[in-house]
């Protein structure tokens, strides 16, 4: 009975993952080794029955092409850079916020957490459009600065890297704050008291005790920001300049403009592999932490 219910409990998420993750992945993998053709669907089949022979056609040219044309590598590196900078910015802004939430009284804590999650109640696309309005040449920010006399002509903010980072950091900040908060909230306040009691000034106690103990939260938050930010397409497209080259945008172009599904799939597979590696590293780290925390 118990074994049966356990199998069922595992089978449900297993089925979910198989249906919505594994099968689509296999399809994408299959397309990535196909050739292009003008047809519906726009790629050659993997298996073909020709004159009594079963032919398996693997086209690795897509992956080779990714290496040959520097566009893809450049886009990839630039995506990693944008995601990396965004992650660091989110961490710098999110850590103090998460710390403040974790340290506030229970009434304030719930209000602040609520406010952190509140933006999710609106579509992310709408929020990005709102930023477009805010950052426009005749938008409220420029108007305010002009009326204060701080600037004499409107700043060009839209369609720049600045606007793109604002958009990404704004959109992903809650994903940094929430895991950090979950970690910091569990810290035993007597640890800080013990450090201070032993002669550590408050900021040194923070650096020596709070920061190292919050590393799992830092890593989890950074993963949650970095991984989706690498493939981010909408924000660079709407807020960033035309020169912003993100892999998500390349993927979009290959798929919808060039209708080169196999090449787009190859890009997707490469992206996936590049992102799975840090996740595995994180998993290793976490299981070690869990093992360490399992003491009596």
């Amino acid at each position, binding site marked *: 009975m118990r074994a049966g219910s356990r199998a069922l409990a595992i089978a449900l998420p297993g089925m979910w993952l198989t249906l919505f993750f594994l099968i689509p992945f296999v399809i994408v993998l299959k397309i990535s080794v196909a050739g292009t053709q003008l047809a519906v669907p726009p790629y050659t089949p993997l298996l073909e029955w020709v004159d009594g022979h079963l032919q398996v056609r693997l086209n690795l040219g897509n992956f080779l092409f990714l290496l040959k044309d520097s566009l893809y590598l450049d886009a990839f590196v630039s995506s990693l850079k944008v995601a990396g900078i965004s992650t660091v910015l989110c961490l710098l802004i999110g850590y103090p916020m998460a710390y403040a939430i974790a340290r506030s009284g229970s009434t304030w804590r719930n209000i602040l957490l609520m406010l952190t999650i509140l933006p999710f109640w609106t579509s992310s696309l709408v929020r990005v459009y709102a930023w477009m309005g805010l950052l426009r040449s005749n938008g409220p920010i420029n108007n305010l600065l002009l009326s204060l006399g701080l600037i004499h002509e409107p700043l060009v903010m839209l369609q720049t890297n600045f606007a793109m980072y604002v958009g990404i950091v704004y959109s992903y900040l809650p994903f940094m704050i929430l895991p950090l908060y979950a970690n910091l909230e569990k810290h035993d306040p*007597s640890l800080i008291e013990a*450090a*201070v*009691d*032993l*002669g550590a*000034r408050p900021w*040194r106690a923070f650096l020596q005790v709070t920061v190292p103990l919050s590393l799992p939260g830092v890593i989890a938050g950074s993963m949650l920001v970095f991984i989706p930010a690498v493939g981010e397409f909408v924000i660079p497209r709407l807020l960033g300049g035309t020169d912003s080259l993100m892999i998500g945008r390349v993927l979009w172009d290959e798929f919808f403009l060039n209708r080169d599904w196999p090449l787009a799939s190859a890009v997707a597979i490469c992206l996936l592999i590049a992102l799975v590696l840090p996740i595995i590293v994180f998993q290793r780290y976490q299981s070690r932490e869990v093992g360490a*925390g399992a003491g*009596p």
Partner: protein
Amino acid sequence: MASLASAPAEEPYIRLEKVTRAFGRFTAVDEVSLDIHRGEIFCLLGGSGCGKTTLLRMLAGFEQPTAGRIFIDGVDMAGVPPYERPVNMMFQSYALFPHMTVQQNVGFGLKQEGMPRAQREERVAQMLGIVKLTGFERRKPHQLSGGQRQRVALARALIKRPKLLLLDEPLGALDKKLREHTQFELLNIQERLGVTFVVVTHDQEEAMTLATRIGVMNQGRIVQVGTPHDIYEFPATRFVADFIGNVNLFEGRLIEDEPDHVIIESPQLGTPIYVGHGVSAAPQATVWAAVRPEKMVLSRESPQESFNKVPGVICEIAYVGDMSVYLVRLDSGGTLRITQANAYRHADERLAREERIWVSWHPSSVVVVTQ
């Protein structure tokens, strides 16, 4: 307080002057004045919420008194942050840094002082020797047993050679066998290093074995200060008598008040109580007579004396091994608790339930409290 006279005549090491700490409308510590001397083990004993932990946290500097002053070694501690006080604390939860090894935990205080690594490691090794944890340097706290963690916490709190060590329920998390062992080890270390200890505990047994003096707290106030013996044998109030150990309390009136003896009439008991010493209370005043269970004697025949004896029936016997606890229902309706040591293995004369019995006690065993 009676015991102050017995303390050494030097300047008190720690002095609390009318220290008060209020949280909103709730007064956790209420005008506590206290002197603690160098080398003492002073126990603050009281139930939960009596203010003992708040008092300890004020000594550590985590809380500031709303009124009153605290002196440590003659220095006023007002406005001195915890990291500048010559005080270290052993936390109830031990508060060991989970990400640091035993060596890093114990050496933490020295590192804050900027002591060079080599010198630090030497001091840590020495301290780990004292708490018998040599060889555990590289372990993390989660790889240690409860008793070992307790000793790491002690070593960490002692490494800076504080003038005053604060211990918050130091033995609370240990099992009974380990507690007894650790208790004596703690005394041993305290004697060796000559540090002044202030211990907070709700456990009277812990206070009795550790303390040179005990301060009993109730509702934010210190009700009695004295040696464990004083507190147990001469409780100043009903609260103290009742809180420390078990006691049989009888309400009554003074009907005879002489310098060398008094007689108390207690309707509850049904017999006059003869007390072998004078009592400072007004005649006819309401007083309480307290007799400890182990100071009462059970016998089948009526004792010779004409006072301090009552007949009753044994209604319950609890055998605890080294002693037995008897509950005796008196003919007057009250119940007495009496303990007798089980000195003989084959008690042929063992008392049985429902047996009629006489309970008696010596005139010197009675403590009279007026409040």
